[in-house]
């Protein structure tokens, strides 16, 4: 028994560290381990993943808040779109073919990984426009953060708010209809569409994904999908990992975070496209 607990704890530390650096949940790490290595039903893997998302979010945000990288206004503003999307998605389950959705959202992720490659090449991280976006001004979304890698305060602006809101709504819809996490889409909405720098994007995504997951987590909790023996050592490991990851993230150059991100987005995107054609990888 100690063996399993220790394994889950270590998996948690790894998933939490990576999840906190990128601002995505550890579902893609945890699901294969729980189903393949431990031979549990996919139902328990989903339960474990959703708890993992919350643990990553809560573990990481503690450090983020003190370090002032997170943009709370952007988080709450976009959260409205995601949660409404998730509710509508849950109500519409079955109204649209999952294959079409998987293909659509998979393609979006592949496209966004290409966008990340372009941004990496351009090397331009922060948006500065002489004419600030009207929406961003009105909703006070422009902000600044202290970059521990560059050792300076970085003022940034955001733009394309309607596009960001649409992606967040779509991400919520997808997570409601398909039961998938939406951390990667959240980073995409902020980094790709709204031109927010990568570090605040991933920190803000981290906070949001916890709030989004909390809504559905209670359902899984009460229907017995969350096994205490899996969830507890996993969560404890993730809390430790997320605390480490969020510290590491702030000291990493944005370029490096982007380089970790690109293959992961590509993998997630291809996985969804394959799933649309009935192939599970």
């Amino acid at each position, binding site marked *: *028994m*100690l063996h399993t*607990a220790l394994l889950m704890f270590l998996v948690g530390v790894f998933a939490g560290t990576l999840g906190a650096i990128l601002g995505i949940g550890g579902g893609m790490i945890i699901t294969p381990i729980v189903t393949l290595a431990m031979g549990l039903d996919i139902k328990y893997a989903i339960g474990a993943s959703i*708890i993992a998302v*919350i*643990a990553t*979010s*809560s*573990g990481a*945000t*503690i450090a983020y*808040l*003190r370090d*002032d990288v*997170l943009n*709370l*206004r952007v988080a*709450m*503003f976009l*959260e*409205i779109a995601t*949660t*409404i999307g*998730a*509710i509508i998605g*849950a*109500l519409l389950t079955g109204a649209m073919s999952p294959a079409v959705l998987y293909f659509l959202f998979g393609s979006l992720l592949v496209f966004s990984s290409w966008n990340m490659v372009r941004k990496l090449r351009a090397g331009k991280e922060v948006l*500065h426009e*002489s004419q*600030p976006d009207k929406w961003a001004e009105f*909703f*006070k979304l*422009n*902000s*600044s953060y202290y970059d521990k890698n560059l050792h300076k305060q970085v*003022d940034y602006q955001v733009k394309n708010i309607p596009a960001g809101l649409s992606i967040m709504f779509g991400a919520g819809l997808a997570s409601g209809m398909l039961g998938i996490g939406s951390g990667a889409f959240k980073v995409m909405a902020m980094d790709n569409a709204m031109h927010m720098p990568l570090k605040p994007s991933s920190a803000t995504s981290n*906070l949001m994904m*916890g*709030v989004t*997951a*909390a*809504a*559905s*987590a*209670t*359902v899984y*909790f*009460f*229907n*017995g999908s*969350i*096994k*205490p*023996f899996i*969830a*507890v*050592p996993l*969560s*404890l490991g993730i*809390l430790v990992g997320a605390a480490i990851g969020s510290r590491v993230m702030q000291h990493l150059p944005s370029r490096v975070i982007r380089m970790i991100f690109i293959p992961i987005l590509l993998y997630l995107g291809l996985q969804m496209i394959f799933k649309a054609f009935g192939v599970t990888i």
Partner: protein
Amino acid sequence: MNKNDNKQQHNVTQEMADIELIIGKIMRIGVIIAAAVMLIGLIMLLITGNGGYYANSYPTTLTAIWHGLFLGRPFAYMMAGTFLLILTPVLRVIVSIYAFFVEKDMLYVVITTTVLLILVVSFIIGHN
């Protein structure tokens, strides 16, 4: 960007820093409590060697969990800690509403309250 914008942006940033410090402290306490309850349950489980329920089952209703806590059953503590962890993001939304209120940012009091209401709605839908 002209000077006025810079100043305004700076003020907003400073206010956010104050808010975030308060929220950070409350969140930290919440997460530590959840983790402590989970850890107590896990240690009990590793010492006694079983979860305290028949056939490796575990409590999934709040009443059963509450009951199990008094009977000192490891799985009850582990489930209670997990439930507390699920509540931490909700706690964050609630303290954010308060923080925006203190800051007199009514636009964001409304936005954040809307998020909380949507969470409540999805919670209700999820249970039907």
